[in-house]
């Protein structure tokens, strides 16, 4: 019975494991990853608040959150640096699990079933679905773009680094990338809320067995198959 | 200046040669741009460098420094050869028709009477033929072969465009273009103005440079007219005033001269100064010399100056040499013959040539007193600043007093500008710290010395004990008291010469001007040319009425101009022999049949008939001199002479070096370099961002021009592989400096006497005190030789060598 599982493996995160329960719980993120995620998340939120303040006059009032325009101008790039570092620690740990595969193509092709929530029609999935992978890679690439263009526009230290025409392009790209990353951010957050039972993965670190069965069955079976079960709990 | 700054707007052609007006006098130069903008005037610049003035010129011609006479003589020849002469003016107002004694001549670069031993001329033949009537013989037809005009033509004959190119390095076509433009000003309705400065004076033949242009201006009829004249752009705010007031070794006030040992008594002294007219009916204003001299002596010594003691004539020191000029004084100092020196607002170790000699001289003093508002290099000459002032402090035994003075903003008083305007200014701020007015300091030293003489007696105390010092507070004479003393007053009632019963000036009243001065001791006057500055009307120097009827630029209501509030000197010459203005649109004064009237104060007796009395009233001839007689040591005509340090030989006499009659001390002769050792022709100058060594103390000007540099051509830079902004070492026989290199297209090598001559330009604003970067000055390199007539050092032409180098080293000074 267990052979099928043992034949076709998906990738597992280091701490991924099942607690027999009852009720069955599945460990999805360890404390390290969770802290890392929230540092990144908070930085991103602060960045988009401070960024938006300097992006559109109607949002300039947001500078008050940071103690005025001068402070906002000063702090925004530094938060950017924090975000960059913290995100890429996360990246180092998760990128393998986010490499796309055949199932993702099928999943994406049936996006209507995804939105409709008819997951019975979808293929069994590993730890991440194509949507999550898209967010992961999207974030990663945009953060690189933002940090690079951000540095070019960082008057205080890098004002002389590049020519003014280059800086103009940098600022344009920076703002476009910012818009894009905000959209992805929304998608990420919304998906987490809409897919009930997801958020606890980043709070408590675990999801219910049912959540894993419904959304990432292959991942669950794989853990079971490889005996990643703690019977005592 | 013969004319005022504001008069320049009336010109048709501005020739800036031997100066750099835009750079050194920007606000005066404004009037050049006005003339350009509103009269369509043209601007010519002749200079070794393409200067800031050149940047707005209509035509620029390069010239090798020190070759100006050849250029100007060339222009004069061009004008005469092409009949571009204002004949009427030249005939009526110059000595062109005067017959010169036989024997006078010029050969091999020398005039008759040269004595190589004495380095001097016997000038007896350099004079007019005097007739039985005691007057000079003239030939108004100008046909006499010995008349000045024909001798001048003969003298100028060699100065062809080819020779000019050979000597000056000015390409023939450029020279001819300049000559053509200048010659156009020979018509009565076109005038040219000459603006020059130290580019002409700082040569061993500086006076002759200026004479050459003055003669050209006379030939063109441009002296005494609006928009014309010889305009010396004086360097300091009151350098004109200090000259007028005779603060010079050979002068007394108002161009009265110091007695020499030949002047055994007052009568002898007067006999050589009250010049009698050389032509019938001429003014020869110096006939009044005695009135001015007696009034001066009364101003100095009051009641102690009596007719019996020859007006205290022997209170004045008598000179055994033409002058104890600064070069002579530092030569004496260097020989240990001077013990004390007072420097009032003066910075000799940056101002005088051969800095090493100046420093060694100061080191031999027993004591030195400096009076300045700012730190100066001189007051700290004993302080070691690494390469910037490499002295052995401990071995310098000079005792130094550095006295803090107020600056302009903290005092009342008048300054005389280049246009001879005496402008009063008022105190605006309180002096900092314990800074004191110079007049207070002088009074204190004087009073303390006088007290010592009273108590102890001593060597010839009379002139000190009797010096009139009757000020309300003798510790600090006020500017008003001193100004009134300069103007002069009646010491007893002065009667009207036309009506002896009428009191002209009551005792104790200010004289209206020098016309009321007497030679009987009834008047006193500190400086006759200034008389009228503060009379009973009040302080005329404080007047600020800027009305200018018909926009002539005269501004008679603005302050006071000497003499007699006259704005244009020789203005009588602005009208023809019959008193009609040469150019009706540029009238200054005209003869209305009975008197002279117009926009300015006539430079002649108001009723002097035009046909009878010549315009040049200070001259015995009544006319101006194309031929200077024996009055200049180095020749009655300007002749080409090379600088003492020249990259080429004198083409008139290849053995002759420099000015044949200029004084050279033996030790300095030994320190003259040759072009073999020092191939490059250096010159020194100002930059517009700085004023001498003052503004380097000021953060703003220091930011605008922060660091000492030298300017060289791209060609020389390539030859020596010197890079833009890199360090170079420049050295002469007398010293060495380090500077940043400014490599520029504005300096080009010239071809002189068949060989390329590279020019090295050295600005003069840096030292080792102040806000700017520490640096050097050209005086570290310049030669210790002066002009043959007035001993102005030859700082504008000397030889140097140059090489790439490294930054100079400084030393931290414990303050």
């Amino acid at each position: 019975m267990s052979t099928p599982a043992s034949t076709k493996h998906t990738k597992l995160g280091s701490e991924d494991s099942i607690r027999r329960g009852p009720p069955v719980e599945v460990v999805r993120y360890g404390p390290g990853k969770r802290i890392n995620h929230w540092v990144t998340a908070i930085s991103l939120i602060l960045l988009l608040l401070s960024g938006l303040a300097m992006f559109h006059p109607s949002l300039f009032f947001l500078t008050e959150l940071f103690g005025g325009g001068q402070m906002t101008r000063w702090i925004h790039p530094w938060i950017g640096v924090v975000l960059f570092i913290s995100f890429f620690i996360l990246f180092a740990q998760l990128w393998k699990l986010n490499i796309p595969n055949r199932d993702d193509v099928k999943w994406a092709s049936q996006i209507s079933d995804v939105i409709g929530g008819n997951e019975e029609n979808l293929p069994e999935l590993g730890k991440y679905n194509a949507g999550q992978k898209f967010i992961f890679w999207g974030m990663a690439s945009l953060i690189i773009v933002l940090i690079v263009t951000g540095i070019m526009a960082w008057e205080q230290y890098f004002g002389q680094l590049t020519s003014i025409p280059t800086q103009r392009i940098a600022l344009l790209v920076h703002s476009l990338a910012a818009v894009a990353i905000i959209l992805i951010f929304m998608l990420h957050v919304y998906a987490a809320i809409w897919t009930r039972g997801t958020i606890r993965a980043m709070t408590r670190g675990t999801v219910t067995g049912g959540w894993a069965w419904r959304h990432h069955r292959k991942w669950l079976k794989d853990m079971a198959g490889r005996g990643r079960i703690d019977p005592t709990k | 200046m013969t004319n005022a700054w504001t008069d320049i707007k009336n010109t048709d052609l501005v020739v800036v040669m031997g100066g750099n007006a835009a750079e050194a006098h920007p606000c005066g130069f404004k009037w050049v741009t006005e003339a350009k903008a509103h009269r369509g005037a043209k601007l010519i610049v002749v200079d070794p460098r393409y200067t800031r003035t050149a940047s707005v010129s209509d035509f620029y011609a390069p010239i090798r420094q020190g070759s100006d006479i050849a250029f100007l003589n060339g222009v004069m020849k061009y004008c005469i050869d092409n009949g571009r002469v204002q004949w009427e003016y030249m005939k009526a107002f110059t000595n062109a028709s005067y017959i010169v004694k036989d024997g006078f001549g010029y050969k091999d670069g020398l005039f008759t009477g040269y004595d190589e031993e004495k380095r001097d001329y016997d000038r007896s033949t350099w004079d007019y033929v005097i007739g039985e009537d005691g007057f000079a013989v003239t030939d108004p037809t100008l046909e006499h072969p010995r008349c000045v005009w024909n001798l001048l033509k003969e003298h100028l004959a060699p100065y062809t465009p080819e020779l000019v190119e050979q000597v000056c390095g000015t390409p023939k076509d450029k020279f001819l273009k300049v000559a053509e433009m200048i010659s156009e000003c020979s018509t009565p309705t076109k005038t040219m103005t000459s603006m020059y400065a130290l580019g002409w004076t700082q040569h061993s033949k500086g006076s002759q440079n200026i004479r050459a242009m003055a003669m050209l201006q006379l030939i063109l009829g441009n002296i005494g007219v609006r928009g014309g004249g010889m305009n010396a752009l004086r360097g300091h705010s009151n350098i004109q005033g200090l000259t007028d007031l005779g603060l010079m070794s050979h002068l007394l006030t108002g161009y009265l001269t110091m007695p020499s040992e030949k002047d055994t008594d007052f009568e002898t002294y007067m006999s050589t100064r009250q010049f009698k007219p050389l032509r019938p009916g001429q003014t020869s204003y110096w006939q009044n010399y005695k009135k001015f001299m007696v009034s001066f002596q009364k101003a100095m010594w009051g009641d102690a100056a009596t007719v019996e003691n020859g007006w205290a004539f022997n209170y004045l020191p008598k000179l055994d040499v033409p002058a104890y000029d600064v070069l002579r004084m530092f030569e004496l100092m260097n020989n240990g013959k001077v013990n004390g020196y007072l420097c009032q607002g003066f910075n000799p170790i940056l101002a005088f040539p051969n800095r090493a000699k100046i420093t060694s001289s100061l080191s031999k003093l027993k004591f030195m007193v400096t009076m300045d508002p700012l730190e100066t290099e001189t007051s700290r000459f004993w302080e070691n600043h690494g390469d910037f002032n490499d002295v052995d402090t401990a071995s310098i035994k000079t005792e130094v007093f550095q006295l803090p003075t107020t600056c302009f903003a903290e005092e009342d008083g008048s300054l005389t500008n280049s246009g001879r305007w005496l402008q009063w200014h008022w105190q605006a701020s309180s002096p900092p710290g314990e800074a004191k007015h110079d007049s207070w300091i002088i009074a204190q030293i004087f009073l303390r010395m006088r007290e010592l003489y009273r108590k102890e007696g001593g060597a010839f105390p009379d002139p000190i004990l009797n010096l009139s010092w009757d000020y309300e507070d003798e510790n600090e004479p006020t500017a008003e008291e001193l100004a009134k003393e300069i103007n002069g007053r009646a010491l007893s009632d002065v009667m009207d010469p036309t009506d002896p019963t009428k009191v002209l000036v009551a005792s104790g009243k200010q004289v209206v001007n020098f016309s009321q001065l007497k030679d009987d001791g009834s008047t006193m006057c500190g400086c006759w040319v200034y008389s009228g500055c503060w009379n009973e009307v009040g302080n005329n120097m404080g007047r600020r009425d800027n009305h200018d009827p018909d926009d002539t630029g005269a501004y008679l209501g603005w302050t006071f101009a000497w003499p007699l509030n006259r704005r244009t000197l020789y203005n009588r010459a602005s009208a023809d022999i019959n008193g009609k203005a040469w150019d009706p649109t540029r009238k200054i004064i005209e003869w209305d049949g009975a008197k002279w009237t117009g926009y300015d104060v006539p430079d002649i007796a108001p009723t002097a008939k035009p046909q009878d009395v010549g315009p040049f009233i200070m001259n015995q001839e009544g006319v101006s001199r194309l031929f200077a007689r024996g009055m200049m040591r180095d020749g009655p005509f300007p002749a080409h002479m090379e600088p003492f340090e020249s990259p080429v030989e004198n083409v008139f006499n290849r053995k002759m070096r420099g000015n044949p009659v200029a004084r050279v001390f033996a030790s300095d002769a030994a320190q003259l370099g040759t072009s073999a050792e020092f191939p490059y022709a250096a010159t020194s100058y100002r930059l517009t961002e700085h004023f001498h060594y003052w503004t380097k103390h000021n953060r703003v000007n220091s930011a605008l021009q922060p660091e000492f540099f030298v300017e060289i051509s791209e060609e020389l830079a390539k030859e020596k592989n010197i890079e833009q902004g890199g360090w170079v070492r420049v050295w002469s026989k007398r010293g060495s400096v380090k500077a940043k290199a400014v490599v520029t297209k504005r300096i080009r090598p010239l071809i002189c006497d068949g060989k390329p001559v590279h020019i090295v330009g050295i600005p003069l604003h840096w030292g080792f005190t102040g806000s700017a970067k520490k640096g050097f000055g050209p005086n570290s390199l310049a030669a210790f030789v002066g002009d043959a007539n007035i001993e102005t050092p030859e700082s504008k032409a000397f030889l140097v060598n140059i090489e790439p180098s490294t930054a100079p080293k400084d030393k931290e000074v414990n303050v």
Partner: protein
Amino acid sequence: MANTMDSPRTAVSNPPVQPMETNLTQRDLIRRSATSELPPPERQLTPVAKLIDVSKCIGCKACQSACVEWNDTNPEVGENVGVYTNPHDLTADMFTLMRFSEWINPETDNLEWLIRKDGCMHCADPGCLKACPSPGAIVQYSNGIVDFIHDNCIGCGYCVKGCPFNIPRISKADHRAYKCTLCSDRVAVGQGPACAKACPTQAIVFGTKEDMKKHAEGRIADLKSRGYANAGLYDPPGVGGTHVMYVLHHNDKPHIYADLPDNPAISAVVQTWKGATKYAGLAVMGLAAAGTLLHGLFGRANRVSKHEEEEAKELVDESVEHVEKREEDA
């Protein structure tokens, strides 16, 4: 009589010393950075302009000096790098700068020393103001003066990127942007800018833009008469004209004057950044937010069913039993 003429002079009277109301107020603003709805000004001031006649300029730097003194800036004492231009660039403490270029005229083969006074051009369409994200940090008065209001400046340096002439500089000391104010404080009490007043040759003059254009015509005619066929007025239309204009002897090639732009305009990149991107970006984000919100409210949430929980339990139990069984066999 021509010689009774005098160049226009910036000042006809010495500055007032009695207390005075400023005459440039918010009521005179026609543009305000990062501010969309600005009340129209109650009055239209006559447009003013500073005219810089490069052909009359002797490069004496009086303008720089007067500027420093009037604005109480504190430029540092730099070093010589082989040129007359000092400091070497505009700084937060040097709002104007003489730029020197040695140019050999190919037609005449003569050297021409071109000296241009660099500084804010006070564009009618100011790139700095367009780029500025901080409301009221950059303002434009109806007389044409573009001024920086330092209290509102956040120091982001967007103005530097927005300016087609590379003028504004950010102070390292207080991180605010600085540039020529056209001496708005002097103009506000009826005095011309300090630089124009000081200029010894009146190469810099100040007055109404109309008068300055008229004066320029006269100057250009004079230059043409002196052989400068291409003399002309530099009042670049690309930025809607400027309130600092040049008379150039070679108006056909402004770039020879230390890289004065031939056809300056606000960069297309800046236009897109501050135009399309700003609005589209906000719109897209708004829509996305709205979209998700609607879906959240009306769409059915993706819930895990009881059945699925049991399925999971089964799977887990199964595999546990499977393991235990194997142990027994062993």
